[in-house]
Each structure stands twice: as structure tokens, then as C-alpha cells.
């Protein structure tokens, strides 16, 4: 598919509403490319599972109980009720943009709104949480038709300021999510600690699908500045006076090493990792995700 059919990210900002931006993106994405791999309450039986508190009593197979004197719950092929926990990094660093590119926050918001839209179309239940240093607005997953409006509202209210703490957000999600959920994280991942990856791995081991969208601005990737420059941190760091030309190569090497380390950690933990720049079409990123899931 040619990327020219996609919306130019630089034009996204002109579309004021996140809802409209998401809709524009979704229109460009082929819907229903994926099957829900999770088991749920479907008419097509899949397997038994030993009863645990919280399981619906109506799914208990009483015949099986009669035979083996244990409670088993029936599980079915279910294509409609995947719970999606969409996490958006709304810290200060996400407000960065260079020249015509949208901010990473806008790019991430549109990406998640588009994804939520697609999930709702498929009958899944997307939820949303924004976070900075602490977990922010939280909208539980739901498949209601009005869910997309609520998600867009939460995304529009994302502050785009403050420090980042991905581990605290993931920890909060870990407390709330059910098994067989989809956790999608959108962040610039500039936190160099390993705690985030550790929690993501825990989530994955608990049976959740974890998808990470690593969003970067091209200016962050290439450091295109010239002349003596005072760089001011966006999350309260001390300013730094440097000649970008002199440190460009070293900077790029550092950043690439950081990204590669995250990617390697994700791959080894079966976490889906997508790195994208804010000047790249969102549709392309979503399709990459959806195609990947169809193959499973």
C-alpha cells in the first residue's frame, strides 16, 4: 500500500478534534484484519478451565462436575470482547515537536484513538489511561458505542507536562487488568531505567498482549540544530550549552543504542515493539500492527 493515500501527519494538527483525526486515520486502515485470539463466552466451545472466583456461574459445566466432582468452566471462541488498555505518555517530553511535525502527544493520541476506533468496530472494549509522573485520567474498557467519544475526550485532556513515570502507570494497569487483555503503550521512552521493561515483561507473563509504540520526533533522532545552542529540558532538567555539530554523532549513537536495547528486550519478551517518527503516517504503523496480529 502506498503511503501517499495516508494522511500526512503534518496535516493532523489542522484537524482540531482527536475524534476526527482518528476517524480519518481509520478510514485509511482496512478493518477486521485481525482475529481475536482470546477465548471468551462464544457459542463455539473451545476448552475447559477450572473454576476460579469471579467466573460466571452460568458457564460452569455441570456435567463435568458430575463426572469428576470438580467445577469446570467452559471457554468459547470469542471475537468481540477483547479488553484493550491503551496507555498514553502525557509527560512534558511528549509535547515536543520540531518544525511542521505534530507533537508526540498529538501523534500518540491520534494513534491510540484510531486503534480504539478499530477495536470498537470489531466489538472489542478499549479503555484509556493517560499518565505522566503519576497515573492520570482513566477510562475503563467498554464496547459501548459512545466509548470512542469518551476516549477522545480523555486524550484531548492529556496535559503534556510533568515528568514521566511509565513503571507507575504499568503498575496501576497490572492491578486492574484481567487476563487476556491487550495493553498498548505509547511513549517516547526516554526514561533510561529498566523498571518499565521489567513490569512490561511481568504483564506479558501474566498472559496479556503487550504492544509498545515508541514515538520519536525526527529532530530527536537526527539532532538537526546548528550553532551554539542552549538545550532546555522539558521535564525540569538543567539546561545544557553545546555545539550540536560536535556532539551529533555521539548523541545519535547513544540514542540508537538506547532504542536498540529496548527493542531487544521487547523481542526477547515477546512484546510487540514499534518505533515510529512523528512525521511518518499513523496508518502505516497501525497496519503494521494489524498485519502482524493477523499472522498469529
Amino acid at each position, binding site marked *: 500500500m502506498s503511503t501517499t493515500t495516508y494522511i500526512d501527519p503534518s496535516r493532523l494538527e489542522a484537524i482540531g478534534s482527536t475524534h476526527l483525526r482518528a476517524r480519518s486515520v481509520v478510514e485509511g486502515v482496512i478493518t477486521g484484519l485481525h482475529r481475536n485470539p482470546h477465548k471468551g463466552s462464544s457459542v463455539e466451545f473451545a476448552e475447559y478451565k477450572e473454576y476460579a472466583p469471579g467466573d460466571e456461574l452460568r458457564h460452569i459445566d455441570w456435567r463435568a462436575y458430575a463426572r469428576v466432582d470438580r467445577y469446570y468452566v467452559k471457554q468459547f471462541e470469542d471475537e468481540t470482547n477483547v479488553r484493550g488498555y491503551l496507555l498514553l505518555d502525557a509527560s*512534558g*517530553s*511528549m509535547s*515536543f515537536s520540531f518544525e511542521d511535525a505534530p507533537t508526540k502527544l498529538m501523534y500518540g493520541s491520534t494513534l491510540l484513538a484510531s486503534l480504539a476506533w478499530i477495536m470498537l468496530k470489531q466489538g472489542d472494549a478499549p479503555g484509556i489511561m493517560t499518565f505522566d509522573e503519576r497515573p492520570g485520567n482513566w477510562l475503563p474498557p467498554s464496547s459501548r458505542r459512545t466509548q470512542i467519544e469518551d476516549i477522545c475526550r480523555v486524550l484531548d485532556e492529556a496535559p503534556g507536562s510533568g515528568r514521566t513515570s511509565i513503571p507507575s502507570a504499568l503498575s496501576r494497569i497490572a492491578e486492574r487488568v484481567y487476563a487476556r487483555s491487550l495493553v498498548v503503550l505509547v511513549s*517516547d521512552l*526516554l526514561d*533510561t531505567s529498566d523498571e518499565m521493561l521489567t513490569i512490561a515483561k511481568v504483564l506479558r507473563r501474566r498472559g496479556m498482549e503487550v504492544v509498545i509504540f515508541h514515538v520519536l*520526533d*525526527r*529532530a*530527536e*533522532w*537526527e*539532532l*538537526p*540544530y*546548528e*550553532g*551554539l*545552542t*542552549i*538545550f*532546555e*529540558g*522539558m*521535564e525540569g*532538567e538543567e*539546561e*545544557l*550549552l*553545546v*555545539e550540536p*555539530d*560536535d*556532539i*551529533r*554523532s*555521539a*548523541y*545519535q*549513537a*547513544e*540514542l*540508537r543504542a*538506547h532504542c536498540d536495547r529496548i527493542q531487544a528486550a521487547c523481542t526477547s519478551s515477546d512484546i510487540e515493539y514499534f*518505533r*515510529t*517518527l512523528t512525521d*511518518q503516517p499513523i496508518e502505516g504503523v497501525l497496519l503494521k500492527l494489524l498485519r502482524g496480529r493477523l499472522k498469529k
Partner: protein
Amino acid sequence: MRFLNPILLAGLAAVFLPIVIHLINRRRAVRVAFPALEFLRRSQKEQARRLKIKQLLLLLARISIFLLLPLAMAQPYMLCGAQGQSAGDRLPTSIVIVIDDSASMSWSRSGDTLLEVARARAQRVVRGMRSWDRAAVIFAHDPPSIVVGDLTGDRGILQRAIRSEPASFGGSDLPSALLLAREIQLDSELSAKRTVVITDDTAAAWSDRVTNPSQLAGLGDVEVIRVSPERAMRNSAVIALDYSEAAEGGAGNYEVTATIESWGYDGESEVEATLLVDDRPVGTTPVEIPADRPGTVTFTHRFDDNGLFRVAVSIEEPEGASADNTRYLPIHLDRSIRALMVNGDVRSVQYNDELFYLERALGARVGEVRAVDTDIVAPERFVSADLSAYDVVILANVAVMPVSQVQRLVEFAEEGGGILLSGGDNVDAERWSSIYADLLPKPVRSVSVLCDPNDPDANIKATRLAALDVTTPIFRVFSLPGGESIQSARVFTYLLLEPTTDESVRTLASYADGGPALLERRIGRGRVLLWTTSIDFDWTDLPIRTAYLPLMQRMVQYLARRGADASDQAVLGERVSIDVESMGAERVEVHDPDGERHVIDVVAGSAGFVPQRAGHHRVFVSASGRDTEVDALSFAANLPPSEHDPAVVAGADRDRFIDAAVGARGADGAVVDVPENRARTWPVLLFLLLVVIYAESLLAVRRRFWQRLRGRRGAESADAL
């Protein structure tokens, strides 16, 4: 350095621009909000040092650009030529090094002598020569000697010459040395000329022997290197040495008197003086030297044998020139005194004869040897007398003498002979004054007759010798106990003299009534004594007194011509004529104090020799194929008096001399002046400017180059996402 467009140097003010811009740029750095600050910080740590160096280099390069640009535009140049200061910088140069090695250069305080310092400075000049320069070396003693006369670029030869030339420590003659230097410079084909004079800059060194400074034209640039210290130099020197028979101790006892002078001392100074006889120290004594006049020290020494004794007096001083600390004097004791007595009043009765008493007094034996060998001649036979065979001529009551003979006597005195004139009845005051005018210390006015010897009141009327100059060897003996017997002699008649202002005349003795008794006049190297009363019994009864014999003997000894004394010693650098006519010598060989032999041809009966070393010189005469040492011809050479004073010549005086000499260049047309030539230096500055601009461009443009390259890489990387 000069500039064609000096006004453009105002552009140098712009040299501060890069600094100001640099500082402003730092303040005007673009502020950018950037999220990945942690990665920037990590990278910046590694690059910080390199960044600082690069920024410093850039700043320096930009400053250099603003410095070099106005300098180059002002078009600087250097003058190369006669009036420029750098002809020697550009052209092959002939360098003549003139080293003063006179006695004053032997001065030292505690370390090296000035001459050693001068040699070191000369070596430095040689080391500073470029491969295309040529040099010669002259030592400026008196007379100066050319050590390396052919201009050479061989540093080995020059350095060896400077090192190996023995110090003369004699007199100095820088002007004559500069004349030699001029000859070398004029012979040189090199257009740039430089004369380096290394000296202690004493007044003696710059003695004005070259009266016409234009004689020195052609020396080129004259550089005077003064090696003497800044503060006043001190020095003590033995300036004179003399000897005489001692009044005490009998025959063979002599007094050697040294005169010592000090310079540079505020008050009295003290040195230790040592008498050396034949190089052996025989006595040492401290000598106090007043600040305003010389001090003297007298050694009494007994010479047991006749013959030649090489005597010297040496002093030890903490600071000063060593060369003048010793003075040399040969003493010949193997020669008896020979006196020719002219009898002006011959009598048949012996005791009435004018010379009866004198002959016996002088003929008295001292041990086995007669004190004086005497010959007596009548006035009319004086013409045929060979005066060179005598040391003393005594004219006793001689009334007249032909003018030619008087002239002979004057010449005899000028050559060192002694003449004693005594009064008597034959003396006519007017005639005497006329005839002996060239000999008499003072003209005779009249004859003063106090009384007749037979007068009963003679004891009262007669006068006596009263005021004696006991500092002279003649009367010194009479200052001793018993010496007063001379005053018992009565004088009945004596010559009255006219007053005179002649400073060479002095009165050695006077009578009690104030009349002169004995007067001395110096003529040339000799002396004339006038005894105003008679030498016999006619005008005085002295001949029958005990004082007569020692007085007469001492007068003759005082007058006697010696082999050498303070007045006829050789001076370093001055020609000595060795008279060997009577010996039939073919050649003469002089052995100097260092043992070096100098063979001299005899011309017209004499051999000329210029001593270069202070000390005793031995003379060998070669006749009939045999070499014989002649003690009588031995002599000692001493320093000229000018070398003793270490006072440094006023710079202005020396500069006037040099300026007069150098300023005369071109007057004789002999010097080839190098025309003024401008050596442009701005092309070099332009070249440097280009280099700096190129370097600045590399430092600055290189950044963009990498930026473009990395831009492609970034794109590739982005695609790789």
C-alpha cells in the same frame, strides 16, 4: 620594521572583534526545548574537551586573521643597507674580532680574568656566525698582532686562535688594532662589514694614538663589548722599583725600594709586598698605601756576590689586575765605578793638589775591592778622554772648558752619566755660569768668602753643613748615630747661586747660613751635582774630617751610571735598542721570561727588540760562531704606567672616538656602502594570513560537511525505522 601604509595599522583595533563576537555568541546561543537532554548530556561529556580546544583554535585563528590582515595591508618592510640595521642579517659579513689583552685585562675579583671573559665573548661571536660569514681575529696589545688575518669561515680555526693566543698583559693599543682591522675589512670582498671590539674599556685602551679618525674609515659597524664590571674596579700596582747601597750593614747591603699605588679605594689600602731575588722570595712585608698618593716599601738585602741579580717586588691583592702586581729590576753588582777626575788646580806639592784628598777618599778599599776606580786628567787632556768608559766625571775647580767639551759632558749626562762640579779658587762666577750653563743646577752669582781658614775667629765666621736631605742615598748614612760629625766641618768660602725655577733642580744640602751646599740637576738619564765649596782643603776643612770619605764615595756612587735602574728599564711594547757594536756581534738572541727565543739581526751595531712579556730578559750575543750570554745587556721589561689605572673610560669619550671613526666612512671612498634596500615582509604575512584562513575554514566548514554527511545518514536511519 617600517610600514608603507602605517595608517592601516589602525585596523589592528579590530583584533578584539573575534573575542567580543565570541563572547556575544556565547550569550546569544539559541535556546531550544529538547526532550532527550539526558542523551545530549552523556554525549557532551565525551566531547567537552575537544569542543573547548576547537573553540579556542577557532578564536585564535579569527584573532590572527584580524591581526595579520591590517599588518599585511600596512605593507611592513625592513631596511637592509648602510643606514639600515640589518645588512648583516641579509648579506655575508666580514667580521673582525679585536680582543684587548692588555695588562688591565688581567683584572679579576674572584673568578675569571677579564681576558677570559673576553675570550668567551669572542667565542660567542664566532658561534653566532652564519655559514656564509667570514671572520678574522686581532689581539690588541701594543703593538697589536693579527692572529687570524685571512678572513675565514672555519670556526675551528677561529676558536683555536682565540683560545690559544697567549695573554700579553702588556700595554694596549686599540686604535692601532682597529687600523689593522680596517685593512682586513678593506681587503674583504664581502659588502657587509662588522668590527667587534672586546675590551675592558679603560682610558688607556682608547689612547688617542690615531689622531685622524678618518684613518679608521671602513670598519663597518663597530660594536664595542665591554667586559669590565659596572662598579668601580680596584687595583694596586708596583709602579716603580729602585735600589741603592744601604747605609748600614757594610758592603753588599742594598736597599730595594718599591713604589706602590692603589686606584679605586676610598681610603687607605694595604697589600703584602714580597722581594724576590732570582725568583726566590727573600722578604715579605705589609705596605699601607694612602688613598691620595703612592706608598713605598724598602727591603734591605745583602748580595753576597758580584754579578747580575734578577730582582722583583710582587704584591698580593684581593682584587685587581694581576699583571701589574710584579715589577722587575736587574741589579748588576759586578761593575766597579769608574770615575774620570779633571784636575783644575794641579800642584807640585801633593797635599796642595786639588784632587789629593778626593783621590784617596775614592781609592779606599771596601774589603778587597776598590770602591771607585779613578783616572785623573788635566783639563787640556780631557778632549781625548773616552767618556763612555766612565760612570762619573768630576770637574774639580776647572776654570774653563771648551764649549764642545761641555756639550760632550751634556751628552754624557743625558746617557746616564754623572757629573760632579766643585768650586775653588779658579772659579770665576760669570765665566762659570756662562761656560757650564748647560750643566750647572743654578747659575753662579758670586763667591762668598766668610773668612780665611787661618783666621782665629774662623770657628765663628765659618759656616757648617746644616740642612741635609737624608732621604737621598748620599746623606742617609749621616742620619745614623755618629753621622753628626759632618756638621763639624767648617766651610770658609762657597759659591753663591742665582735663584731658578727649574723643577729638575733640587738642593740636597745647605749651610747653616742658608747658602746652598750641594745641588742636583737631572739631565736626561743622568745627574749633575754641584758642590759649592772646594773639594780640597782650600775653602773647607771637610777633607780632614771623618765624614769626607763616606760623603765623597756616596756622591760618586749616587752619580754613577748603573746597568739598569728605574729610569732605563724597558717598557712592554716599546722598542729596546741593544748596543753590541763593541762586541762585533752578528746577531743577538733574546730569551723572554717565558723562555721563548727571539733572534735579532744586528744593524749598525745594535739590535732592536720589542718586549711583549713582562719580566727579566736574557741576552745572548753571537760572535765568531759562539753564543755568549752577556749579563750586562740583560734587561727587565715592565708595564707602561697607563695600564695601572682601571678606571673605565667614559662611554661618551669612547663613543665620540668610534663615531668619529665610523662617521668618516665614505670620506676616503674606500668603503662600499650597501644602498638602502627594502626587504618586504608583508608577503610572508599574507601567506600566513592565507594559512590561517584555510585553517579557520577547515575548522568551520568541516562542521557543515559532516552535517551534510550525517543528514544523509539520518535519512537512511529514519528509513531504517
